[in-house]
């Protein structure tokens, strides 16, 4: 191919150089255009979400954010319940997922016998690639029935009447709900956060680590006083990337959340999240204002996740440029 295109034998050197210049312009222009497409996608998403939700924005105003009612028949829509569900399931997921991920990362970088390090690391990375619908499927068929019959009755009996936190554990054991969704999300973000925190831990210079051990520090002291402070920014970034995943996750949650548009004080009650509401109701939305309200939910989710992911990216980027 290179020979067939080579014009040097028949043309003068000058015109071949100018042809190369034009080809260069076309090539570099095409790459720049592709980069513009990437930026254009984001702008397109923003514009389409705004135009799609304009009807709901003008009709409900900012009150949309704190209205709990969601009544397709009377065409009154409010985002409070899905926002609450989105935030709470993600908080539960982070509360469980982050400590466990950190534990696994500490195990992998400090304790694990070198022979097991690679296989476990690879397994974690492969698990991070499993689609979220599988987690949802498992949550729906295995975890939810198990929690309903074995765990939730216990929680209701033993914590239900406790002062202060008792309200979190009341009502019948549905199996599906905020609590179950939070656990499924936690399991889903686990490999993801672990893969990042492990990589961040590995950025600690060996010299620093070995000096600390040489001073007589225990493994835990090395982790807590050397590794964690050194990787602080990257850790927060990794956790926020996981949070971004959890906030926007659709399929893992939709199966087990119960799709109920209400804010209940109990963690065991069915609820909904922004993405679950869109996934469940979008194709059933019959009136334009219903569709528009669902798109406005999408817009809210976009703003929340974009902020979280942007911050995470900024923090992780600061680590990479060390």
């Amino acid at each position, binding site marked *: 191919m290179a020979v067939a295109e080579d014009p040097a034998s028949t043309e003068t050197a000058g015109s071949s150089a100018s042809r190369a210049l034009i080809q260069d312009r076309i090539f*570099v222009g*095409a790459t720049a255009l592709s980069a513009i497409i990437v930026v254009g996608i984001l702008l397109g998403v923003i514009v389409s979400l705004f135009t799609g939700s304009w009807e709901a924005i003008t009709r409900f105003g900012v009150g949309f954010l704190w209205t709990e009612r969601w009544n397709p028949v009377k065409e009154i829509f409010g985002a409070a319940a899905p926002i609450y569900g989105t935030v709470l399931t993600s908080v539960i997921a982070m509360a469980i997922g982050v400590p*466990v991920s950190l*534990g696994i990362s500490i195990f992998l970088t400090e304790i694990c016998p070198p022979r097991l390090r690679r296989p476990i690391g690879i397994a974690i990375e492969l698990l991070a690639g499993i689609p979220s*619908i599988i987690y949802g499927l498992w949550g729906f068929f295995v975890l939810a029935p198990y929690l309903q019959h074995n765990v939730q009755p216990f929680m209701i009996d033993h914590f239900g009447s406790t002062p202060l936190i008792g309200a979190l554990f009341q009502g019948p054991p549905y199996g599906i709900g905020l609590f179950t969704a939070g656990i499924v999300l936690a399991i889903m973000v686990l490999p993801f956060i672990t893969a990042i925190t492990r990589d961040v831990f590995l950025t600690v210079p060996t010299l620093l680590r070995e000096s600390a051990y040489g001073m007589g520090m225990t493994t*835990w002291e090395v982790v807590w006083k050397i590794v964690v402070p050194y990787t602080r920014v990257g850790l927060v970034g990794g956790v926020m990337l996981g949070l971004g995943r959890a906030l926007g996750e659709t399929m893992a949650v939709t199966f087990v959340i119960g799709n109920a548009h209400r804010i209940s004080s109990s963690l065991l009650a069915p609820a909904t999240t922004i993405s679950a509401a869109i996934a469940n109701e979008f194709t059933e939305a019959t009136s334009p204002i219903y569709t528009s309200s669902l798109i406005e939910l999408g817009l809210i989710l976009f703003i929340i996740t974009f902020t979280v992911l942007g911050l995470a990216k900024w923090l992780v980027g600061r680590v990479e440029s060390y």
Partner: protein
Amino acid sequence: MSTLYSQRRLGNAIAMVLAVAATVVGLFFLAAILWTLLAEGLAAATPALFVEMTPPPGDDGGLANAIFGSLMMTMVSVLVATPIGILAGTYLAEYSRGSLLGEAAKFINDVLLSAPSIIVGLFVYTTLVVPFGHFSAWAGAAALGLIALPVVNRTTQDMLALVPNTLREAAAALGAPRWRIMVFVVYRAARSGILTGVLLAIARVSGETAPLLFTALNNQFWSTDMSQPMANLPVVIFQFALSPYDDWQKLAWGGALLVTATILVLNIIARSLARTRSN
């Protein structure tokens, strides 16, 4: 002195036990999921799964139309996303050099990489479904393409960064124009790395459900018309799993195993490709 020492040792022991426990618990749950998937999925894995259509409730059937639909949409999406992703990655790794467009596109691409896929679905719905008045496989492929693009873009950037500058300089010193340096020298050096990115993009796209729910929708029947709704594995899994019919739930597990196995195989190939490169 000795109490402080034993306190430190105790603290260390507790922390280490907790770390091991976290690993055991975490791996247990992940193994439990894979185990259920394998047990339920293998029970549903019959030859009929690949040759018969999605059945009405209570009837025998398979997932042939859904498998075909998924293959079609994945193929179209990756075929479109790959050249754009590679070119954009080339610009960001080679030519942008701190320009505003370069910095913005890098940042936006990384955010798009983990942006909620359901938002992509909403975007495609408003731009490709509403104007044409109906759901279509084209819209589904477009949604998947938007998810594949950032993956290809990011891996291309990373892989081009690994190509030694001396190669570019040597080619430039021979008088090669910039496009020739890229196409005949740098892309060749980074070939397996870029291929890894494409495989990762296919893996990522194969399991995506949310963006297909209201773009490609679903189709009970065999359809090869990309301008009509088309069955696809993820949406069929979603709908069949939530149905009250045992046959449908069984098919959902079969589909889930198929999707997961495909993704695992793609990921493993991608990893071994990346490793041969780094060796």
